[in-house]
């Protein structure tokens, strides 16, 4: 099984091909001769200096004035996420709900404001990612949430659902 590292939502695979006499890794399908020492990595004979910082599951690597925010993919969590399938409005940052423009059962058009949140003293309108019906308001007015938390769940409009099944 290859190690999967996620960068900006895209997964990259890393496999050990050989460990001796020198380390060979297959990175995204391409074999590279690799040697890593603190602060430097040799890749196919070329040296790259890097800085790294690890916090929780996030592994930051900075090379040549560019930062890579990497995360090792946990296969168990991935399955859970895939089983979802509901349309969700997620909080883009931690904050609180200021006002709700829609109630459960209301129809919304794509881009329509569903609720206004406040974070870092700024109010932001969160809009529907697509046409649908508000199935559940997870966070009510005045309630707080963390980044990436689901605040509102959507289901497809019934007519769309019929079209899809017919």
């Amino acid at each position: 099984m290859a190690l999967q590292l996620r960068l900006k939502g895209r997964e990259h695979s890393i496999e050990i091909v050989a460990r001796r006499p020198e380390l060979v890794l297959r990175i995204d399908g391409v074999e590279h001769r690799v040697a890593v020492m603190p602060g430097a990595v040799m890749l196919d004979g070329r040296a790259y200096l890097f800085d790294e910082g690890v916090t929780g599951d996030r592994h930051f690597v900075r090379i040549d004035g560019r930062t890579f925010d990497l995360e090792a993919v946990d296969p168990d969590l991935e399955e859970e996420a895939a089983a979802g399938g509901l349309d969700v409005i997620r909080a883009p940052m931690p904050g609180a709900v200021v006002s709700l423009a829609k109630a459960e059962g209301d129809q919304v058009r794509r881009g329509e404001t569903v609720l206004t949140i406040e974070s870092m003293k700024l109010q932001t309108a969160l809009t529907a990612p697509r046409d649908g019906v508000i199935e559940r308001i997870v966070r009510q007015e005045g309630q707080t949430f963390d980044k990436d938390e689901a605040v509102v769940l959507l289901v497809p409009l019934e007519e769309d659902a019929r079209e899809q099944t017919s």
Partner: protein
Amino acid sequence: MSGKSFSKVLVANRGEIACRVMRTLDAMGIASVAIHHAAEAGAAHARMAGEAVEIAGDTPVAAHLDGRQIIEAALETGAEAIHPGYGFLSENAGFARMVAEAGLTFIGPDADVIALMGDKISSRNFAQKHGVPVAPSVMPTEELDEFVRQAEAIGFPLLIKASAGGGGKGMSIVREASGLREAARIAASEAQRYFGDGRVYAETYVERPRHIEVQVLGDGEGGAVHLGERECSVQRRFQKIIEEAPAARLPASLRDEICEAAVRLAKAAKYRNAGTVEFILGADGRFFFLEMNTRLQVEHPVTEMVTGIDLVRAQIEIAAGKGLPLAQKDVRFEGHAIECRICAEDPERDFMPETGRVARLRVPDRDWLRFENALDEGRAVTADFDPMLAKLVAHGPDRSMAVERSIAALKDLALLGVTTNIDYLGRVLDHPAFRAGDLHTGFVSEHREALAEAEPEPGILAAALAAAAMGLREFRDLVEAVPEPHATIGGWRN
């Protein structure tokens, strides 16, 4: 003027600006007192001070806004003066008044001058009266129907703001009548929440405006000088991210006109302290008064770098009654300076604030570079405070050298563990329009596509992946294990 001198000053702030103020206090042989909430115990500014006093509050921000507690801390520690930094209570007239009533010196202007300049309308009227140009506008009101009627009469585009506000809160640009009412409603609600004053205000929006501001020093008795202008046109979410001094491509006669208008305003207000008069400059050369900030500005270091004047020292000496540090004819300008505000935010997600932890900090050391910060490796970056983490300020003999040096320093800087705008800032500086000095406050949105991060070079990406993989203990163990492992690899965690 002879004046008094202070032996101890309380710094009513935190983070990089508290550290920066204390650096000058140290240099002047003045003892410093820091304040901190329990959530920031052991923070850099508290460690740097001679004494640190804990202040209580439901949130850290609430504690830093509790003037009464802060004055008590000053009295208890025997501080004679309070330096407010920027933000928090720095432009709060009530606080300045309370400080004076407690027998302490507020390092800033008189409360009445703060109140005059702190209100969009009174400051605008004052500016107009003293021959400083202002833009056509709607008077602030809480009556939204009346507001909408008057705003429509001026025409579009319109800039809508909270009357008592600042920092972009409640601000928006409205281009047609249909969006006006909703924008006014949001502005009024944010105004009420943050400033306790629901009045909203609108004025003609200048297309492709440049933000030009003038640093002034006033002695409080009608004497004032300017230390040149700064350009702060590169903004996102109505907040500055790159500032420079002097402004690029500004004709000398226009520069003089703008700086003279700022000095006229400061003299008329009998302004005391360092202050900044902000203007909006149109492509046609017309400029309008925006507001006056009656405090030290975030971007003050660029002015310090081109003039060689320590603005905090000037503030303290003026507050002590020692007058202005120099006459206008003695102000000299040398080279060019650029400040980049490094923020915990994601440029790819509309600059939304980010949280994390400072896992790695490595700062390049150059004699032309200032890295203003209060960061510690290991400390969490939370949503408790403003997302600005640090300021990187570079000086060069001319603008192109200052740009090159800033790009090099950003590239060399490692601040890892939270998503930041460091690489984004580098791309802004490297953009041909920035290099050409073709700036306006819509720069960030105008060049959105060109400023997006390019795909990484394959070799660099592979090197980063290899480095990260070898940083994972389970992976490294597999590589280094003797003998060859037979087990398959399980979950990957750091």
